[in-house]
């Protein structure tokens, strides 16, 4: 069966951006690809309705965030994800602190990570995040505060963090 041309155009045009979103949500390219594919497949099924009434991009991003917090993978906690000592990004010598943060993000539970990504990558409000993830606003705040506390405990406070206390 052929693809709906509108859907095919949307998928082709947005695939890169969605994969980037999947990457910051999940932290690795494989899960990013899976999240993107799975969410696009679900969008395809809902396409006639979503195209008419909703924003397809919003629909697929919400689906990805929800899938991310619910996916169970046969991967143990420590597997190959803990704290690589000398990971480097190959471009303009990013700060050690950023690398440390990226690694520390890998140690967060899916929900905490999703809340932080929605807040600080997607720039969504807590009310929007609550809606996207289907949880209460209080839970969003609690995940964000636990997630940030854990990141601080791994990589340490900045001067500004300390002065805010």
């Amino acid at each position: 069966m052929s693809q709906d041309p509108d859907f095919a155009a949307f998928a082709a045009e947005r695939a890169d951006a969605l994969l980037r979103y999947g990457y910051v949500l999940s932290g690795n390219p494989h899960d990013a690809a899976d999240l993107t594919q799975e969410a696009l497949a679900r969008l395809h099924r809902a396409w006639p309705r979503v195209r008419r009434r909703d924003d397809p991009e919003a629909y697929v991003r919400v689906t990805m965030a929800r899938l991310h917090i619910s996916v169970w993978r046969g991967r143990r906690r420590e597997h190959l994800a803990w704290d690589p000592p000398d990971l480097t990004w190959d471009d303009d010598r990013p700060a050690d602190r950023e690398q440390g943060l990226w690694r520390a993000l890998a140690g967060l539970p899916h929900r905490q990570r999703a809340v932080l990504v929605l807040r600080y990558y997607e720039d969504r409000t807590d009310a929007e995040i609550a809606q996207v993830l289907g949880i209460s606003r209080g839970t969003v705040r609690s995940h964000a505060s636990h997630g940030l506390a854990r990141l601080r405990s791994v990589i340490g406070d900045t001067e500004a963090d300390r002065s805010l206390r």
Partner: protein
Amino acid sequence: MTIEDDLRTTLRRAAAHAPLAPPALVAGIGRRSRRRTRARLLASAAAVVVVTAGTVLAIRQESPRPVVVNPSLPAITREQVVGAPPVEEVWPEAVRVVPAALRDGRRLRALALAGDRTALLSTWGSHENANAVYAYDQVTRQIRKVTDVRTRKGEISDGFLVDGDRLIWHVTTGTSAVLWQAPLSGGPARRLPGGLPHVPARMELHGDRLVYSAREGVFTVPATGGRPEPVPGGQGLFLLEWPWAGAFEPADMIEIAFRRLVNLETGEVSEVTPGPGEKNVICGVTTCSGLRADGGAFVRGRDGTGERALPGLPHGLAADRIMGLTDSRPEESEQYLLDVTTGRAGSLELDIPADDESYTTIAVTVDRRDMLSAHRIGAETLVIIDLRRIVSGS
């Protein structure tokens, strides 16, 4: 700068490191599932009975054979993979289908395989923390308790492996671990002498010693307990499969890609340099997989020979040859396993429904050397793939 500012910058920068979407990412999505007429497996959870009588299990010890990628192998196509029969039909000698729950409803997870007919399963006391081990006999379809696994709050039991007629595991706190054992025939767990000043990750049996990775490097300890010793040359390395260990690298991934491997017995170093524009190159002991600059997936020998094109975006390289491929469809998605050496593929029969907000897949990572398992949620069964059997069977 607050941590929030740093997080914004970090996430933006990480996004810039995401791979570009290869054409395969969206290629199959609009297609409808091929009508699958195979009979679904009957749920067998109801047939499970707990028995207390135990027998000593015969243990199969096999060392892995080297995998050779044939230089003239043709591309594996999507058609060879998507719609493939269930894994138990493709690799009958290597696949077990076992109940996913006890009769009282407690969920079971796969821990290890023992011999030709026994699968060791566990119940969880808390998330990913086994509190009891059961043995399921594939022939009699009976399940019996092997032992209770005791952990205190904050401790995690992990690393279950079979050594002859006993089961060994470790219980970790945040910074250290203790080894335990129990007879496979059934009986109380006993703590082994000594302790590990590390949190072990991958652990395997080598002769009469255990070899394991920790954050600090690779260590060995007698399989009967005792004092752990660092493996010379293993500092900062992660054990892939004895004697090969790799370092954390490279830039575009947070996984270990094992492009640089060190033989901890001989000191030999094997280094793989990806070609220009290649992404996500992950290697095993003999084989590498990745994406070419044009986005197409490939597998080839560590020495660069025998390249073979693969369909879609396959994951991982378990036991140097098994990859996972998820086929996402509007109605129902499925995960397949693909043997890149033989080109054979099988369906995990996970039947992931599109209207379900949660789903299960296997992470077929390269450090999986013994087995893979997945939960067939609809059928309430676990499917367990004995990787060593696939490797030794061809």
